[in-house]
C-alpha cells in the first residue's frame, strides 16, 4: 500500500495476556518509529529502528515491552503480561531516514494506529 499500515486496528485483551502489534512501513523507508498515545495525551516515544543499526529503545516503559524489525520491512511491537495502564493507541511511523540526517523532508508518516484495551 501507499501508506503505513498497522494491524490490528483494535485489540481487546485480558490483563496478563501477551499482545503483538504489527506495522508495515512505506516501502523504501529506512527509519521506523513506535509511539504510544494514552487517552487525552500527546505521543510518547517508545523505540525507533534505522536500517541495520541498533534500535533506540530508550522510550520503552518496562521490560514487558519489546519490538523487532526485520531489515527495512515489517516491525512487531510485543507487550507481555499486559496491564490496564497499557491501554492506549499505539502508533507506528516511518520516514526516509532518521530525523536530523537531512534525508528527505524529515517528515514522519504515521499509520492510523492500533487501539489496545486491556480489561
Amino acid at each position: 500500500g501507499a501508506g503505513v499500515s498497522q494491524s490490528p486496528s483494535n485489540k481487546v485483551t485480558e490483563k496478563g495476556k501477551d499482545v503483538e502489534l504489527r506495522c508495515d512501513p512505506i516501502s523504501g523507508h529506512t527509519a521506523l518509529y513506535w509511539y504510544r498515545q494514552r487517552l487525552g495525551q500527546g505521543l510518547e516515544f517508545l523505540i525507533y529502528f534505522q536500517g541495520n543499526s541498533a534500535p533506540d529503545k530508550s522510550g520503552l516503559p518496562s521490560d514487558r515491552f519489546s519490538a523487532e524489525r526485520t531489515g527495512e520491512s515489517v516491525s512487531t511491537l510485543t507487550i507481555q503480561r499486559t496491564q490496564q495502564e497499557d491501554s492506549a493507541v499505539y502508533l507506528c511511523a516511518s520516514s526516509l531516514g532518521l530525523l536530523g540526517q537531512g534525508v528527505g523532508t524529515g517528515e514522519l508518516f504515521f499509520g492510523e494506529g492500533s487501539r489496545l484495551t486491556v480489561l
Partner: protein
Amino acid sequence: SQELEQSPQSLIVQEGKNLTINCTSSKTLYGLYWYKQKYGEGLIFLMMLQKGGEEKSHEKITAKLDEKKQQSSLHITASQPSHAGIYLCGADRGNKLVFGAGTILRVKS
C-alpha cells in the same frame, strides 16, 4: 511538566474566526513539526520549521518559529469545520520527535 507545552489545551471557535495555537519548549529548538490528528486517524504532517524566524504557510494555516523564545505558533485564518481536530507540535530531539500534549480545536458552524 512536559518538555513541550501547548496552549490552549482546547478551544472552540466560530466558523470564520481566526485562532492561534502556541507551542513552547523548555529546551533549544532545532526543528519544530506541526501535525494534525483527527479522531481514529493517524497524524497528518502540516509543516516543519528549522530556522529561527522561519514562517511557512499552507492554505489558511501559517506557522512561525521564534528560536530565541523557544516557541512556535500556528495560526489559522478564517477557520472552517474541516480545521477541527487535535494539533500537535513535535520537537526534533536527536533522531526522534518529542510531542506536546496537543490542542483540541472545535469549529462551530
